[in-house]
């Protein structure tokens, strides 16, 4: 995304916003001001690690007591587990439950990273295409390899729509092939795009809050957008996970 600080320029000129709405997505080293290299500990590293820590505390420590009357954290953990378990079973079928741990991991990671990004002063890791593309490519490769391992060459019959008229089938095969390879693109950009756009809009309204005449309207708008973002944070994690289930179902049962 925008790598240079636009905000500093605008502030120096004394015009426009005090900060650029994209400034919040800049990757900075956590210690010092050096270059961002391959192994530099950046703010992305910190917030990725924090989401792992939160998941660990919620899912491992929260459920470790196994109380019959669950505590609050145990209730949340059990609710999340049951929710994803039912989703995998409904969408993928009984034989998809073998891959439930992977889908549960994906959901918990995305939903935690999204919610952590909503904290003031935090960094939203899922707003970066680099993070979501890795997640989507992992799903794409897993599903493709799984499809070939489970079905052999007959996995390719997914692209040969046997219910269509014979003359149409080659054209449909090309369309199906293109849409198959576009999957990781839309899968990753949907998540990052939604999260990034929402956070940028909040920052745009925050810029207007400095102008006295419109600041009450702007603060109301920030509150409303924040409410919407809480919804989006959950729904985008849900959509990412349910699409993973759909792709998994295609790999396990490629025949239409």
């Amino acid at each position, binding site marked *: 995304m925008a790598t240079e600080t636009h905000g500093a320029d605008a502030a120096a000129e004394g015009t426009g916003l005090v900060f650029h709405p994209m400034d919040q997505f800049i990757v900075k080293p956590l210690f010092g001001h050096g270059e961002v290299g391959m192994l530099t500990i950046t703010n992305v590293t910190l917030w990725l690690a924090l989401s792992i820590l939160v998941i660990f505390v919620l899912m491992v420590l929260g459920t470790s007591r196994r109380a019959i009357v669950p505590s609050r954290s145990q209730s949340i953990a059990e609710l999340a587990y049951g929710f994803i378990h039912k989703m995998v079973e409904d969408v993928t079928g009984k034989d998809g439950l073998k891959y439930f741990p992977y889908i549960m991991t994906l959901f918990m990671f995305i939903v935690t990273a999204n919610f952590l990004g909503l904290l003031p002063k935090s960094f939203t890791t899922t707003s970066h295409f680099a993070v979501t593309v890795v997640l989507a490519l992992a799903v794409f490769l897993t599903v493709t390899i799984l499809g070939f391992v489970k079905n052999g060459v007959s996995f390719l019959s997914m692209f040969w729509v046997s219910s269509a008229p014979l003359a149409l089938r080659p054209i449909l095969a090309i369309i199906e092939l293109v849409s198959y390879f576009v999957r990781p693109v839309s899968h990753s950009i949907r998540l990052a795009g939604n999260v990034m756009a929402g956070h940028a809009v909040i920052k745009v309204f925050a810029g207007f809050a400095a102008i006295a005449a419109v600041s009450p309207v702007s603060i109301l708008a920030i509150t409303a957008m924040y409410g919407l973002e809480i919804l989006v944070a959950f*729904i985008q994690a849900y959509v990412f996970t349910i699409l993973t289930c759909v792709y998994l179902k295609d790999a396990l049962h490629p025949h239409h």
Partner: protein
Amino acid sequence: MEGQLAHIGAGIAGLGTGIAALGVGNVAANFLAGALRNPSAAASQTATLFIGIAFAEALGIFSFLIALLLMFAV
């Protein structure tokens, strides 16, 4: 000049996002119309609703991507 043209192009590409919003609204509206006729079947179809919304939204996201590329990569 070329950079300004890219910005105009990004604005035009942004229109696609709005048009995709029509599609998403259409999916949700038809789901609601169906759900009000037969509320007992609605709960089992929410997953289908979200998949439909996601597919309709994907095409809007492509135009958003084009806009981003024009803004930052060209």
